[in-house]
């Protein structure tokens, strides 16, 4: 780590206050981004990957200060800012979050953004050339003809023609619009481009085109890229390093080939196995990630992924089939949340067939992947006990039984970052007994 990174994000947080009542009292916060840290080197592409709702877009807009971050530092060392230092009051001179309006406007020249939806990223009433040229105008280039020349030249570089300057957005296809969006992001000659799902609205054949163009331009102008996507296969094509985000936190970060070859976090594993394999012969069904990302207002304790993790750790002294264990925890969480409605289950089954509740019991076991008989006797007794209570209509009690009996270390301990190799770190308790590093220690 001799060279200064272009961008260093340190413990960045973005919380949206949730207000209620007559006086707009703040009753909580949606922690969309909750303390993420990473670096992007010059000319490097960092992928930020995760499901929708994991906070990756919010991270992007907060980094580039399209939204005000709640806390944290974003240190940008581009252009002529290479020698930054921390002031007496603890504020870094290159910290974007503390930029004045003037500095921020200058920073806009250094960092630009590409958006997801090509159909809405251009003003429908403005010629695309003018849309691109507006960037120059905003930054003080008042020479109309010079603006036009620069933009025409740039349009040709992104694979369009100079005469496209005078056409309107609706006259272009999605892929072409994304090329123009790229031109717009480039025209101020930035050091960093944040690309928020730039290809997910495009056909696969056009995706490849755009990705290649991005890579070519990146090489030519030594750009750094923060590339956001939910699709691991896209990440694989363009990124040097990848950061996997889940519910506002980065759970794994490392060089792309290493993360793909040897994913360390179960969430990364699941994301990788969700990529459709273009091989009709492969029948191996990957890990299915059930459910959706929980609400960021009340994230799960410990490791935030534990509610959906297929590798959730079993407590000391318990050793049952992993899918059973997963099922047990899911059943427990549902019962505690009051999300199992026995009455209607019974209605559906028909009361006559299910006077003693065996139907409900077996249905619950199937639904939660539980075998008829758990291999661990103690666990089986607890489960039976809980199911009995469910049948009796005491879901709350059943939840309590399971809660007291089954706990996983994953919900109690917040995992630290573990370093697996240079630059490859993940935050999972499975690795906690190996070499533990504290996240900030690496650079401070």
């Amino acid at each position, binding site marked *: 780590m001799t060279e200064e990174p272009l961008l260093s994000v340190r413990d960045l947080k973005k919380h949206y206050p949730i207000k209620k009542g007559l006086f707009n009292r703040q009753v909580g916060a949606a922690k969309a981004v909750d303390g993420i840290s990473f670096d992007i080197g010059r000319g490097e592409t960092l992928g930020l990957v995760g499901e929708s709702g994991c906070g990756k877009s919010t991270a992007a807009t907060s980094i*580039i200060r*399209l939204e005000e971050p709640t806390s944290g530092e974003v240190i940008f060392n581009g252009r002529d800012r290479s020698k930054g230092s921390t002031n007496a009051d603890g504020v870094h001179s290159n910290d974007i979050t503390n930029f004045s309006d003037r500095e*921020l*406007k*200058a920073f*806009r*020249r250094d960092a*630009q*953004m590409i*958006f*997801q*939806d090509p*159909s*809405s*990223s*251009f*003003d*429908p*009433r*403005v*010629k695309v050339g003018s*849309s691109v040229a*507006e*960037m*120059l*105008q*905003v*930054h*003080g*280039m*008042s020479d109309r003809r*010079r603006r036009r*020349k*620069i*933009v025409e*030249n*740039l349009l040709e570089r992104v694979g369009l023609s100079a005469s496209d300057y*005078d056409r*309107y957005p*609706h006259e272009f296809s999605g892929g072409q619009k994304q090329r123009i*969006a790229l031109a*717009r992001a*480039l*025209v*101020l*000659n930035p050091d960093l481009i944040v690309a928020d799902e730039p290809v997910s609205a495009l056909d696969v054949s056009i995706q490849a085109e755009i990705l290649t163009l991005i890579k070519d331009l990146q090489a030519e*102008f030594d750009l750094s890229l923060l590339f956001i996507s939910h699709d691991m296969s896209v990440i694989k094509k363009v990124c040097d390093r990848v950061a996997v985000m889940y519910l506002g936190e980065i759970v794994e970060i490392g060089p792309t080939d290493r993360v793909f070859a040897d994913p360390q976090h179960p969430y990364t594993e699941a994301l990788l196995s969700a990529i459709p394999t273009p091989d009709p012969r492969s029948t191996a069904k990957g890990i299915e990630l059930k459910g959706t990302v929980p609400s960021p207002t009340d994230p799960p304790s410990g490791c935030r992924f534990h509610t959906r993790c297929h590798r959730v750790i079993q407590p000391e002294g318990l050793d049952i089939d992993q899918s059973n264990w997963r099922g047990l925890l899911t059943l427990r969480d549902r019962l505690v949340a009051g999300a199992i409605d026995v009455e209607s289950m019974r209605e559906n089954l028909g009361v006559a067939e299910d006077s003693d509740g065996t139907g409900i019991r077996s249905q619950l076991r199937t639904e939660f992947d539980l075998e008829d008989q758990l291999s661990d006797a103690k666990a089986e007794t607890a489960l039976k006990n809980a199911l009995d209570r469910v049948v009796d209509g005491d879901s709350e009690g059943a939840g309590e039984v399971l809660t007291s009996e089954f706990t996983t270390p994953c919900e109690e301990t917040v995992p630290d970052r573990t370093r697996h190799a240079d630059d490859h770190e993940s935050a999972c308790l499975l690795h906690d007994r190996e070499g533990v590093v504290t996240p900030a220690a690496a650079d401070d």
Partner: protein
Amino acid sequence: MATKKPERFDQVDWSELSESGRLDLSINSIGMVITSLPVVLLGLYDWRFIGDRTDTFEFIGLSRNLESLDYFFIFTLLLFFFYLILPLAQNPRMTKYYWKEFKRNRPAVVSLGWLLIVFAGGLLGPLVISAPEQDILIGHQPPVFLSVDAANVANCVGDIVGGQCQGTWEYPLGTTRGGKSVFTSIIYGMTISMQIAFITTTIVAAIGISFGTVSAYAGGWVDEVLMRFVDIILSFPTLLMFLLILYIYGAGLGMFILVFSLFAWGGTARYVRSKSLSVSEEEYIKASRISGASTYRVVRKHVVPNTASSIITQLTLLIPGFLLAEAQLAFLGLGDSNIPSWGQLISAGRSDLAFAPWIVLAPGIVLFLTILAFNFLGDALLDALNPEAEAESE
């Protein structure tokens, strides 16, 4: 060759450019400033240096006077030209597309033609035709091709055939009781109607758009306060207010326009606000913000133009209300009796309806057609100015 290297984005020296070109006015704004300057100077001259009784153009030997309303009218016309007509000419392809869409609606094209006639008549008519003169001797002349019982006409200008007074080309739409030419009065009424249409629209648009966009962009308590104020405006009894002013101070056309337009922008403001909110969600607004553009610029260049289609439609549909209100007040005898508006003309003819219906009918039909035309136009503009509709069809 080396002196003229190709302009490339990565070869721009920004340090040399920053801070320069602060005042980067568009051609339209420059034109607006240059042309409105003489109008302002003339107004100042009129107001400060010459007496009330002297005509404005006395200094070049013209006997024409300009009222404050006229200045305002000229100003709105300039605005209209530089920010609506000129942009259309500057973007011929967009204009062509709008025209193509607009053309589909036949009644709207006819309406536009009619409104252009009214506009041209109102603008040029008073310059070429002298104002209708009172001449009691030639009262109640029938329109051309029509005839009326000679007993009702004091002094028939045309021939009297079989006891019937024939209309003449001299007074193509006949005359009023006072002998004023109805045709000339209608032409002069066009000026009044156009003044009402343009000035109210400008006031409503200016206040409505400012309130709407500020409200949408400021958010929080500013939004809350502004929108509650709009509620008050909307529930204000404008007519009563106007009558009150009328009884206490007396009220001319200027006061009518002022009062009615100052209480009519509530709906526009609300409309603009909701439109701005939805437009500001679009990615191109984000892209514009990320360019470093100021909020004012983003609103001025992107939000307002993209809400314009609905604003223009809404304003077009607002105009008939004002024209009708003026006519109704005039008919009730509450209008400005010094102006030759259509309403005044109708009002003047109501007592002679039995034997001289043209005095009421002619301006009545013109008023009706004009209002109908504005409504058709507004409807067609809504369809034509919507670029999304086209994007979907492709």
